[in-house]
């Protein structure tokens, strides 16, 4: 492949007179796959499994009456501690209540608590975070209060509030929301502070936009991705906290069949009937797992900073 050895000009350019470099295939099979956000996330097994589980669980909660003929609260002294059967899929508890019905209906309470807390904590945390990140004068005070709130171990704070204000679903939601707010607020504040430094926000400020307009148009949309991811974690964490509160007797009223309460009921006889605890535990764990899987893949796909794969 050596060409002329001097600098003599070549004659009229005709393709066959040029020495061509060899063309070789690349060292990887050449499959160029370009996908948008939805294409990529749709191929993420964890995400698909998580969403699938959530659909099944939410569906089960919504259509609970269609899944089981039994009333989750109905006590029947004649049908106590029945084993697994076609009628009582997971048997009955020591008061004769159908375990399957209690677990299916229990999903309603747990999901309601989880979603409510996620929504409230995201909303309030977003507001506090925006104010703290944007209004410098209030930043110190707000963040020190959030620090103080975060210095109290979350579950203990919820326990204290529940013990003082009494068992009810709304108190559970308020208590857990209070625990979760500082985490959301700190996240939002962090995003706001980093955005403030960026060129497009500075440009908006210099071109005379009002603060509220800058927050609404420029900052708020950019906090959405991390906020959604955080809300999914808050939801999972709230469901765990609710189950723990109910389990130790500081959660929703004992008559309400939340998963925590069902497990608390199962404690007395768990050594002979472990299913009393394990069935609701598996339901709760699967739900939280599903939410975590979805949250993780949302984080991987939505947050470009964490998207570096090695």
């Amino acid at each position, binding site marked *: *492949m*050596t*060409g*002329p*050895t*001097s*600098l*003599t*000009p*070549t004659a*009229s*350019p005709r*393709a066959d007179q*040029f*020495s*061509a*470099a*060899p*063309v*070789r295939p*690349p*060292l*990887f099979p*050449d499959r*160029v796959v*370009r996908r948008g956000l939805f294409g990529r996330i749709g191929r993420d097994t964890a995400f698909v499994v998580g969403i699938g589980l959530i659909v099944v669980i939410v569906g089960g909660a919504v259509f609970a009456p269609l899944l089981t003929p039994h009333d989750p609260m109905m006590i029947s002294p004649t049908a106590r501690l029945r084993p697994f059967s076609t009628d009582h899929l997971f048997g009955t508890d020591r008061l004769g209540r159908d375990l399957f019905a209690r677990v299916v209906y229990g999903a309603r309470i747990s999901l309601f608590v989880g979603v409510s807390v996620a929504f409230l904590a995201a909303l309030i945390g977003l507001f506090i975070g925006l104010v703290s990140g944007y209004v410098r004068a209030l930043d110190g005070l707000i963040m020190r209060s959030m620090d103080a709130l975060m210095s109290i171990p979350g579950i203990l704070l919820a326990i204290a509030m529940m013990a003082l204000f009494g068992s009810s679903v709304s108190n559970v939601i308020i208590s857990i929301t209070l625990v979760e707010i500082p985490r959301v607020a700190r996240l939002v504040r962090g995003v706001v502070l980093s955005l403030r430094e960026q060129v497009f926000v500075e440009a908006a400020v210099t071109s005379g936009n009002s603060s509220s307009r800058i927050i609404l148009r420029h900052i708020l949309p950019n906090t959405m991705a991390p906020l959604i991811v955080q809300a999914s974690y808050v939801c999972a964490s709230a469901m765990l906290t609710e189950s723990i509160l109910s389990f130790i007797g500081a959660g929703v009223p004992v008559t309400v069949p939340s998963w925590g309460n069902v497990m608390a009921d199962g404690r007395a006889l768990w050594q002979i009937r472990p299913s009393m605890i394990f069935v609701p535990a598996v339901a709760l764990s699967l739900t939280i797992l599903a939410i975590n899987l979805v949250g993780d893949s949302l984080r991987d796909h939505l947050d470009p900073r964490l998207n570096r794969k*090695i």
Partner: protein
Amino acid sequence: MALLELKDLRVHFRTPNGINRAVDGLDLVLDAGETVAIVGESGSGKSVASMSILRLLHGENCRSDGEILYQGRNLLDLDEKAMRRIRGNEISMIFQEPMTALNPVMKVGRQISEAILLHQNVDRDTAMRKAQDMLDLVGIPESKRRLDEYPHQLSGGMRQRVMIAIALACEPSILIADEPTTALDVTIQAQILDLVKELKDRLGTSVLIVTHDLGVVAEVANRVVVMYAGQKVEEAGVGDLFAAPLHPYTEGLLRAMPKLGTSRVTPDWRLAEIPGQIVSTIGEIKGCVFANRCNRVQEVCHEIRPALRTFGSGRVAACHFPCGSKVPDV
């Protein structure tokens, strides 16, 4: 036999956007006692090529092919353990960023003695004494105190000296320097280059220097390899290259370099720049890699990738219409 010879070296990366042919068929020879420079702008694959010699690029998204012959042994065939005996012992490397290339939580003395302990059968105290000697050798004053300092207590130039001390601690036969002066102040740059030259002569080390700066090349190199978009486009002795570049890209690089003795008053003072940007090495490039920026480009250049041709003594270039030849319609 050459000390180091790259034969048809290819390094490809799998990226989300496609396959990056960062280095695609590089031939290079480094003889004992010689200094060879690889020149190119960022994205030319020069750093990847230099790092692939010690097989510092790894992971399932990186593959290398071809031969890297060191004293006749192909480094690509060695197992990890044998490779480790080469690294830092027979072939050493220094990097562009002295600010980040040293471990921030490890004392300087330990970082130098680590290399010595790995390759020489000596105890810790001896290694530490050797480390101090190395600091003296690379011209760091108060070497004893510096051994106990952390990198953040040193200036950028000092850190690059420490890097050189680490690299030369086991008296390697080859030193690969990847943009060793780019991140430094101009005055420090000259000091570091002088140090490299001096130590090369004193220790008899061959040097492969990677740079985008032709000033550095003129200062230290015997021979130059010009890389562009993963390809070698020209190779020549440093004198020949500066006197009469063959590849239009080399010519462009030289024109973009300030010449000594020119000033605003001389007619030719203005620096020329090469228009456009380096072509992405992701995906297939049709024809000559430089065609889109070339001032001598012809239709055929977009069609046929020029092969490397030999011009006179030891000069090669990959161009259909090298500088000095007649271009049909220009």
